[in-house]
Structures are given as structure tokens and as C-alpha cells.
């Protein structure tokens, strides 16, 4: 009995770490766009889904290398980001209700278009990395380790981008004071289009990778949206590094709670924990002062 308990504990610790890195990967694009530009992209999940499908098609139907397919998917979905900025976020800037309407319209069209066009077949992108790593009693697939590394390195890249590059600083200026940024001669439309491109590219990366880890369904983007919002709010609005810690908390909770609870009750308890954290720290773990 003791041996099985140790195994369970070790497995849970590993799961918590890997799940957290997966959630960070999923949430990165969304939190980037919201924290830097103040744009709430409700269609993030569906963009993630489209990214996954493009990668799948490139890798299986066209038959090119998965990593190349990933790059193509990132490029195509990134271009879609320009379209989204021009037709969704720019005309309805600051009007959350209208953005919800347009995003739901977009989600309905894309999800149903994919659902109709796909045959009933389980579709999985070929694995990006094969094999299993064994260390003592822990054994772990390389794929999950690679996801972990990609998630962390993308997070670092994003942090470097917004802190060290000219465009990153411009984005923060636009988010802080739109009029001031315009007066400084910053091309606001260019900067926000760039932010959308980056956010969509990050979503496509996450989708392509998850398409090989799980399977593809037209609805795969719907379930992750709640997780992504949890991470956003827990991490605190306006802070990208908060994503790291919020991802860790959400991932750990998701790995630990199912051990004791069955199925759907885990989500209820999880929400309770998150709500309690937010009631005591309404601006999130790393958030700045709440703006009125």
C-alpha cells in the first residue's frame, strides 16, 4: 500500500508541473493581449482550434514535417490576427458587450464550419517528439518535457519582448495612455496589430502542440477558455509574470483535486478556491492597482 501511495504522490507532483506548463502555454497569447493592450479576445479558444487544424492538415494531408507545419500554422493564424484587429478590436475598442457579440459570431461561424467540414474520424497530429524518459520510478514522455520547455521559453521571450524591444515599450505606452502614445508619434494601429499577431501566433503554437498531445475536435477551444480566464485573473491584470504563478496554481489544483474528488466536483471546489483567493486579493496575485 505504501508503495502505491509514494507512486501516487510522485505522479501527482510530476503531473502538476507538466499541467502547469501546459496551461501557461495555453494562456500566454490571451494574457499577453489583455495585459498589454487591454483587449479581451473571447475568440482565443477558436483561434487555438484553427491553429491546431491548420497544423494537422499540413502535417497529415500535405505531409510535411510537423515542426514545419507548426510554423505555417503560426504564420497563417498570425495573419488572421491582423484581420481581427482591423475588423473586431479596432471598431469596438472599449465596448466589451459588442466585442462579445462579434466574437461569439466568429466562434459560431468557425466552429460550425470546421464541424461540418470534418468527417467523423479521430484526428491527431503526429507526435512532435517520441519516446519516454525514465528517471528512477518516474517515467515521463519526452513530448511533455518538450511542451514544458517550449512554454517556459515562450514566456521568457514574451517578457523580453515587452521589456527590451522598442515595439514592446510602445505597446505598454499605448496601454497606459492612448492619447499620450499618439502624441508621442506611436503608430497605435500598427502596435495593436502587432500585438494581435503575436497573441494569435501564440494561440496557434499552443493549439498545434495540443493537437498532437490530445486530439482535435471543433470544440477543443471552448473548454480551455475558462482555464485561460482563471489564469488571467489569478495572475493579475497588467502583469505577465503573474501568468507563471497562476498557471502553477491552476495546474497544481487540477492535478491534485481529482485524487480525492470525483469528476465534476473538482471544478466546483476549484472555482471556490479561486473565488476565495480573488476576494482577498481582488487585483490578483501580481496585479497592479485596480483602475476604476
Amino acid at each position, binding site marked *: 500500500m505504501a508503495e502505491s501511495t509514494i507512486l501516487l504522490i510522485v505522479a501527482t507532483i510530476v503531473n502538476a508541473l507538466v499541467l502547469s506548463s501546459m496551461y501557461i502555454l495555453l494562456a500566454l497569447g490571451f494574457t499577453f493581449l489583455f495585459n498589454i493592450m487591454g483587449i479581451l479576445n473571447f475568440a482565443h479558444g477558436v483561434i487555438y482550434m484553427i491553429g491546431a487544424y491548420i497544423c494537422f492538415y499540413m502535417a497529415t494531408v500535405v505531409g510535411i514535417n510537423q515542426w514545419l507545419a507548426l510554423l505555417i500554422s503560426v504564420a497563417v493564424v498570425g495573419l488572421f490576427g491582423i484581420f481581427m484587429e482591423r475588423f473586431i478590436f479596432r471598431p469596438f475598442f472599449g465596448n466589451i458587450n459588442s466585442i462579445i457579440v*462579434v466574437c461569439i459570431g466568429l466562434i459560431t461561424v468557425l466552429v460550425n464550419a470546421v464541424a461540418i467540414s470534418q468527417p467523423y474520424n479521430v484526428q491527431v497530429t503526429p507526435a512532435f517528439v517520441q519516446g519516454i524518459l525514465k528517471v528512477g520510478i518516474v517515467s515521463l514522455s519526452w513530448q511533455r518535457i518538450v511542451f514544458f520547455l517550449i512554454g517556459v521559453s515562450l514566456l521568457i521571450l514574451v517578457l523580453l519582448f515587452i521589456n527590451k524591444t522598442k515595439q514592446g515599450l510602445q505597446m505598454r505606452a499605448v496601454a497606459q495612455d492612448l492619447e499620450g502614445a499618439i502624441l508621442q508619434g506611436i503608430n497605435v494601429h500598427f502596435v495593436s496589430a502587432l500585438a494581435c499577431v503575436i497573441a494569435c501566433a501564440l494561440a496557434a503554437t499552443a493549439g498545434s502542440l495540443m493537437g498532437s498531445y490530445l486530439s482535435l475536435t471543433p470544440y477543443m477551444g471552448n473548454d480551455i477558455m*475558462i482555464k485561460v480566464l482563471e489564469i488571467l485573473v489569478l495572475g493579475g*491584470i497588467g502583469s505577465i509574470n503573474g501568468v507563471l504563478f497562476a498557471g502553477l496554481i491552476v495546474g497544481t489544483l487540477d492535478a491534485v483535486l481529482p485524487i480525492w474528488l470525483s469528476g465534476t466536483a473538482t471544478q466546483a471546489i476549484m*472555482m471556490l478556491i*479561486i473565488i476565495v483567493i480573488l476576494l482577498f486579493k*481582488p487585483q490578483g496575485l501580481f496585479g497592479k492597482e*485596480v483602475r476604476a
Partner: protein
Amino acid sequence: MGSMIAARDSSSRRKNYTQIILYGILICFLLFIPLFFQSPYVLHLFILTLVYIIAAASMRFIMTSGQIPLAHAAFLGLGAYVSAVLSKHVGLSPWLSLFIAAFVAMGVGIFISFPFARLKAFYYAMVSLFFGVGLLQAIESLGKLTGGLAGITAIPTLFNTASKVPYYYCFLALTLVSLVILYRFEVSRIGWNLKAIDQSYLVSSSVGISEVKYRVLAVAIGCFFVGLAGGMYANYNVTLSPSSFDSSVTLWMIIYVTIGGMNNFSGPIIGTAVLFLIPQYFSGLKQYAPFISAAILFLVIFMFRNGLVCIPGLLMAFYKRKKSTSKSR
């Protein structure tokens, strides 16, 4: 000053008469619907529309206070499940359980809105979203009582008949009463205070409007009516499942409000009627039917930024402009 009031009085009275006549025509129309449509299925659609009209109107009421209640569909579900469980497992009369459901939803709404009242705009929306998801999952995890993900069936109905006509009239009456009450609240001092809080909570609290009190009040009133709608839904529809109340339903309710027009009391009513009934007309398209809803969304949001209620205003402005240009010519 006095003459101004008198002048406004007479003009508003004249407007009142036209309004009353138009309302009369509308209500007569609604009363005669079961005579126009013999098909129970069409009546079924109208009945569901009435339920969603209450839900959307109560949501808009909370939104006037600047809070975006993303748990609203979960409250609809709470009302529905409370009424269903009370009438099925406890054996209460559905009429009683319907109103208990409304009060339970109101109670839970008050209970959560005290701590939530310290959260502002976006945080409130997100925390209420999480609360809604959690509430629904909690309902789902109650096992035999609520039937889990699969849902609950064989709920006792309000009327002991297979005909849908009594439901239609009963729900029409409940909807009209609910709408009148919500309207009275909105044009009362409470409604103005809520709008003041929405515009600036600092200014409103400086003139003595208690922010917490009024925000809780808005949620209480909104949740009461959405709980009532949930109870009506449960005891009419016989079956319930959690997926009918998940967060996407809340987003659709926001869409009903926005497409109809957020700034007008009739917005959610029109939005619900249009977005619920028109896609049904195309339900023969099967998998392609959702595209119709999406097309309506895009059409309305890009053409009429303020929702469908602004169409008469736009038409009138267009008419006036035309008249003035023709006059100048």
C-alpha cells in the same frame, strides 16, 4: 417654469396615449397568438421566448448598475433545478416551488453579492463567471438528486394537460408582470441611483448613494426574476440539463441584450424575440442553422451599433433629413 412643466405634461400625455394604444395592440396580438397558430410546436417556441425575455430583461437590469453578471445563466439553472427538485423529490406543488425557486435564487444572489460588491467592473464579471461555472458544476455533482451531467427528467408540470395554450397565457401574464415590475424599478429612484453608480461610483457615493446597498439590490432583483424564469422553464419543459445553463448561455443572454439595445428597456425583449425566433425558422437547415444566427449578429452589430431599438430613431432622422433637404431645395 410652471408653463414649461405644463407643456411637457401635455406633450408627454399625448405620447402616452399613442404608447397606450400601441401597447394595447401589441398585447391583443400576443393574446391572439394561440388562435393564429394551432401547431403546438410554434407555441412551444413562443413560450420559451417568454422565459428568455424575463431572463434577458433581468440581466439588463443588473447591467444598468455597471455589473456584468456572467453567472446569470447559472442563476437561471439554479432556479430551474431548485424548482425541479422541490416539485419532483420533495413533492411540493409546482406553483409553490416556482416561487421558492425565485426566492432561493434571490437569496444566493444577495449572499454572493455582498463580498462581490467590492470587485469592480472586469473583476466582478470574471469572478461572477467563475461563480457561475462553479455553481453549475456543484449542481452537476449532486448525483442522483440532479441527475448529474445527463440532467433531470419527469419534472411535474404546472398544468395537468398536454395542451400548450394554458402555459402560453400563464407565462405571458408572468412575463408582462415581471416586465412591468422591472420597468417600474428602472424608472424609479433606485434605477437612477444604479445608473449613477454605473457612471461613477465615487461621485454617487459622495452624494450619499450607498454603492454596496444598491449593487446588492440590483443583483437581488435581477436574480429573483431569473430564478422565476428558471422555475417556469423547469416546470414547463419537463427535462433539464446543466448544459442549457452554462457560460455560453450567459454570453448569448448578453448578445440578446446588446443586439436589442443595451440603452433601452425594450432592448432585451426585442433582441430575444429576434435572435430566438428567427433562427428557429431556419432550423430545417440542420447543421447549417447556426450560421443564420451568426449572420444576424454580424449584420446588426456592424449596421446598428446601438442595437435594433435604434432603428426607428435612425429612420426618423433619415426622414427628417430628407424632408429638410427637399425643403431647402
